[in-house]
């Protein structure tokens, strides 16, 4: 149908990790044309970044072909990609901290002649002036803010005259003003005849900047739409699949008194950015408090602060005992919290990097929480083994044996092991972060059931999620975070996806520019 030659054409791309255990992309084909901006849309884990990493030479596809301007190419390394004019701005910046902006920008260039940092700085200044960036070329990267670092990344690509640009969630770290100036730059590039791919999951940005939308779901290509001829509703439907009523069981809350009282919780990142800004709320036993928000809005910091893993700047987290006595949890370490007699379970987002030890077997991972028990200098190995067996049986964990390292298990089974361990401790508070990310339907429902069981036992559950359907059907109340601020607490039984979405993007205050 389209007679033009695409700038880039990826055909039947398949990529797996862990010897085929994890399929990141399956038979994906996409086309990008010059003078256009393509939005690559998909939920977390849908394989957008992996796909683009194969275009930029970070990964090598297992199967499939890539064509640039109609010619088949092999992209073995980022260098190959750059030679083909493909430049990617990664979500995690690829900058050398101890070098200056200029040094980072000219890194790896094959220009003739001696290294002339002054001339390069001049050229960078020109680019800055042209697009309205504000950057000191001689500033060291480790002194820069996140948005300055992104500026360096973008200039790096512009400096190389790349004509195929990939931006991986570029606006996640930008203020609205910075986003607008970025979009202006992108429009200029488009006018220059460059091909731009932007990975995002903010639908209003898709509508504002893109010409076409390609949607991925679970690593597969779902469809391509013209932005102006389709609606965000259609994109969402394609992203999440056919609208299914999840029918998650939701028992009524038990109506117990508050278990945790969070007040004015404020967290600043190591770079000095506000991650949580005076967040206050209560959670009661026997209820599920859902937490919604665009990724990076402070969810991680919130949970880690409560768990005693995050240095906080201000505020308090009060734990209320059954008899009404109150104890401060803030700035304790997890071990101290345990010794205060408080069982606080936490299923972190990074399952293998934080919640579990990938190279240890199931039984040893069970011991993480319990190994200190008893006076003996030796660990009790019988009970963890039994507990592992019990969890394998009850949660139907698929594993060759209890002695298999958890790294070998599939995502769903890893999560069952982790959640199983955390609830085996009979907690009073259960916090989960993205508990069903990457899990199949059955495993997800197992997790929902476990959460509801805990709720009925009177546990205060905090459920951080990204799937709004699940949040609305599982939670009793939904707390919405937006850029570290609490933008609202909604009654899950009365709200809908649209309203939660508005609170997530802070559009609710701006007079209903609802999509």
């Amino acid at each position, binding site marked *: 149908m389209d007679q033009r030659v695409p700038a880039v054409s990826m055909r039947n791309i398949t990529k797996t990790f862990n010897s085929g255990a994890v399929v990141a992309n399956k038979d994906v084909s996409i086309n990008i044309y010059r003078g256009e901006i393509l939005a690559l849309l998909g939920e977390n884990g849908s394989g957008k970044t992996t796909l683009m990493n194969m275009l930029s030479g970070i990964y090598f596809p297992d199967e499939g072909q890539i064509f640039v301007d109609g010619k088949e190419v092999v992209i073995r390394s980022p260098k190959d990609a750059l030679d083909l004019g493909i430049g990617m701005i990664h979500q995690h910046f690829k900058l050398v901290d101890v*070098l200056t902006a200029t040094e980072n920008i000219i890194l790896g*260039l094959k220009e003739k002649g001696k*290294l002339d940092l002054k001339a390069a700085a001049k050229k960078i200044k020109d680019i800055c002036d042209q697009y309205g960036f504000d950057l000191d070329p001689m500033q060291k990267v480790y002194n820069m803010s996140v948005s300055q670092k992104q500026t360096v990344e973008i200039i790096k690509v512009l400096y190389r005259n790349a004509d195929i640009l990939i931006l991986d969630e570029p606006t996640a770290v930008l203020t609205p003003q910075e986003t607008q100036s970025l979009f202006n730059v992108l429009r200029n590039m488009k006018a220059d005849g460059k091909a731009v791919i932007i990975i995002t999951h903010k639908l209003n940005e898709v509508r504002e900047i893109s010409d076409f939308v390609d949607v991925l779901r679970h690593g597969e290509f779902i469809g391509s739409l013209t932005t102006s001829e389709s609606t965000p509703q259609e994109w969402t439907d394609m992203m999440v699949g056919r609208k299914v009523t999840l029918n998650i069981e939701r028992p009524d809350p038990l109506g117990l008194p508050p278990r945790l009282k969070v007040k004015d919780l404020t967290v600043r990142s190591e770079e000095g950015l506000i991650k949580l800004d005076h967040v206050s709320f209560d959670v009661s036993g026997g209820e599920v408090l859902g937490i919604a928000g665009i990724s990076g809005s402070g969810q991680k910091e919130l949970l880690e602060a409560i768990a005693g893993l995050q240095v906080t700047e201000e505020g308090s987290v009060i734990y209320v005992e059954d008899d009404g006595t109150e104890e401060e949890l803030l700035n304790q370490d997890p071990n101290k919290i345990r010794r205060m007699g408080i069982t606080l379970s936490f299923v972190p987002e990074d399952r293998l990097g934080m919640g579990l030890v990938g190279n240890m077997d199931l039984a040893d991972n069970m011991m993480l929480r319990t190994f200190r028990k008893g006076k003996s200098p030796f660990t009790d190995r019988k009970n963890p083994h039994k507990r592992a067996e019990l969890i394998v049986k009850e949660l139907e964990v698929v594993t060759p044996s209890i002695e298999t390292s958890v790294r070998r298990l599939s995502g769903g089974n890893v999560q069952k092991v982790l959640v199983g361990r955390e609830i085996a401790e009979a907690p009073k508070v259960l916090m989960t972060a993205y508990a069903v990310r990457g899990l199949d339907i059955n495993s997800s429902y197992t997790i929902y059931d476990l959460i509801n069981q805990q709720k009925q036992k009177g546990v205060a559950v905090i459920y951080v999620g990204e799937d709004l359907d699940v949040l609305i059907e599982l939670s009793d109340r939904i707390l919405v975070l937006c850029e570290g601020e609490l933008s609202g607490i909604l009654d899950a039984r009365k709200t809908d996806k649209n309203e939660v979405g508005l609170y997530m993007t802070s559009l609710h205050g701006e007079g209903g520019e609802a999509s």
Partner: protein
Amino acid sequence: MFDIVSFFPRAVVQSVPLLCGSTGETITEKSGNLNLGIPGIMYVGAISGVIGSFFYEQSLKASGSTINTFLGIAIPMVCSILGSLLMGLIYCFLTVSLRANQNVTGLALTTFGVGFGNFFGGSLIKLTGSEVPSIALTQTHGCFVHKLPLAAKTGWFGKMFLNYGFLVYLAIIIALIAAYVLRHTRLGLNLRSVGEDPATADAAGINVNRYKYFATCIGSVIAGLGGLFYIMDYASGVWSNDGFGDRGWLAIALVIFTIWRPNVGVLASILFGALYILYLFIPTGANAAIKEFYKMIPYVVTLLVLVTVSMRKRRENQPPASLGNSYFREER
């Protein structure tokens, strides 16, 4: 009175092996490779040169001719370079291509290299069936210590600065060039980025493995020259087992002491060299043991530098961030 005119040159000749070793190791470490095989490489650099010139001198003896200065220098130089290069390649193959642990590989390389040096140093005569009592390459030594003609005419200045064999100047020139290249060229910039953050360097189109190979091999060759200097110049062409001692480790200390700056290494190595021989010039009375304490000073000072630098956390002064790690692009 402390005789600086005779003290200084002795400190300088002590400094050259250290300078070569540390320049080589700095270049290597800048690529993110912590090569603990440097002591072994310096032994191999030395013995390879010895083997080369041993055969050359034996052939001269057989034919009754006198030494050709050019060959007398070129043969051991080439042999030394090849020997060190081979060691560098072994290290790279294991750590870069096969991603073996750098520390373990380095230590194995040192065991191997020191053993190699001592073995051939101790068995060369037996293996070749020669009829000489010991390895004494006096003719080659003569070639290596040709002095500048000006040295004798310029009094104390000549004695202090001009009265050395060419390897001394070569070592200093190499160190200065290395400093310049690291600081002011594209090559140096790319190399530094590989050692700091290989994933970023890779994304910028730099061939990380090639840089690691390249830097490590060049570094090994430079370090090997230090070993060669020790034998051919300092030790008058006489090999003695373990004679080179712990200079290889001291060279690694020097890298930290100079905070990865070869140009600073020129002066710092002379300082280290001076501490090595200070006891000869300071009246210690009956207490000969005190010299061993002086020899400890470089290590203690290096420790203090290392700790201070890590306490102050100035980013520019830290070891290369990825030092000791191997790089695999698809690591998740």
